[in-house]
């Protein structure tokens, strides 16, 4: 197993690990990946991946508009809002 690039992984996960915790998570991740590595012993060349365990056809419903949520109710949970919008720092200069 190659070394784990913890900076790259945390960047992909949109996490900014404090430098003192980087080693802690890197070691932990390494231990766990080593522990799950036994799956490589199994020959699965003829096996199809399993996504949906009961393998039922996923049910499809009509795409109808249902007014279950009001805009105000939804926006009440927003950390910052302006009128009917979520408010964030300026993105486009």
């Amino acid at each position, binding site marked *: 197993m190659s070394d*784990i690039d*913890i900076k*790259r*992984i*945390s960047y*992909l*996960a*949109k*996490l*900014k*690990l*404090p430098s003192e915790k980087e080693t802690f*998570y890197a070691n*932990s*991740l390494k*231990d*766990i*990946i080593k*522990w*799950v*590595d*036994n*799956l*490589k012993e*199994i020959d*699965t060349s003829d*096996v*199809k*991946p*399993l*996504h*949906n*365990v*009961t393998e*039922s056809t*996923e*049910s*499809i*419903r009509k795409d109808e508009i249902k007014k*279950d*949520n*009001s805009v105000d*109710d*939804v926006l*009440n*949970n*927003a*950390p*910052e809002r302006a009128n009917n919008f*979520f408010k*964030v*720092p300026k*993105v486009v200069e």
Partner: protein
Amino acid sequence: MKQSISQIKKSLTDKKIGVAELYSEYANKAKANLNNSYNYVIDDDENKLFIEQSQQRYTSGDNLPLDGIPLGIKDLFCTKGIKTSASSKILSNFIPQYESFVTKELLNSGSIFIGKNNCDEFAMGSSNETSHFGPVINPWRSKTSPDDDLVPGGSSGGSAAAVAEGSCVASMGTDTGGSIRQPASLCGIVGLKPTFGSCSRWGIVAFASSLDQAGPLANCVEDAGHILNAINKHDFNDTTSSNHKREDYVSEIHEKMEGKIKIGIPSDYLIDVNQDILNQIENTKKVLSKHEIEFVDVKFTTTDFALSTYYIIAPAEASSNLARYDGIRFGVREDGESLDDIYLNSRTQGFGDEVTRRILIGTYVLSAGYYDAYYRQAQKVRRLIKDDFQRVFNEVDFILTPTTPNEAFKIGDKLDPISMYKNDIYTVPTSLAGLPGISIPSGLSSNGLPLGIQLIGNYFKEKQLLQLAALAEKELAFNE
């Protein structure tokens, strides 16, 4: 002995007790346990209307299946207008504007919610120690060191402790790799994980969507059946909600089971198991053999790979599901100069250690260059695990295993994540296969702590599984 739902309903029907009086009895205990088994206890005022309506139905003689029954709800179910935190800092201010499918059905059945049960953060944990609001203390104490505070198990630790301490009649939990069955076992109560797809996931804070399943924690098997009757329904809002025919899981629960029953005991589950745990299996075998139930040894070939498969698939799904927490639309925002800084700060400060660890594992196994070796390989092995169970179910009707490899342990004792993950060794394979499993209390360890056995059925065989569990419960007489 605690009263069952049927007994309580009879007292309410016979006017020996009123709904308000019953509610206060449980709510007062819950209030005393706030910040332990509960994150939030609902104000009496907010429940006043529900209590009055329920009492009216009893007075008019036309009550609902769970009328007036006080329930605890894991803080993972969205409850309209009631704080839902998933025991995480990042959701600590979240008030859902809608009701989850399962809790809506419970309300439609007349039950009254006492509060929101503490759990592991985002249901990631086996001891309830990862909760942002602090651990839950198991109401049980060991004979040998009675001063130790023990874990209730997890992740539905608060839901299990609440039932065991009597601050609700039953509670709702969720089970991804054992989160209902394991705490039920460590707290000496019943916990049922239904077949994947039985109960809608709509409105449950998502952890691993191909594994998450809602289910009851209760004092007895019959109570679990009552709750299952209320929540086991098809839901158009969950694309994995099954269309199978639902049954009445209670009316015939105490009747003799049809035909000759064969139960498999997986010998590979019992290697290196301590005597206390082995005794549970031996004793169950002994008491059930009187009922013309045959026991056979079965052997799985995939057991050694189940935990590895789970600890790839569950974190992978979690890392995707938890991408939605960004501090923009709901939840706690940590300020930053740019949009990206808000994302980074909100997520980094909002998630605890275990959740961060699982997001990192999940991101790693899904990242370019590792996807095939880990995630895809795990999905393939998952099929082998499922096939392994189906092979065994060609020979037997049910499978009997311990629920956990050990009794409740001391808070703070298991610091290493892998040793914590191993606590779910008996429950994870069932979850990966999507099969229904129930844990019932079977006896006490030499330290006087409760231990449970797990009974596993084939897909959608909850009715028969509950019948068998009710018989085992009667014969094991744990509650007497």
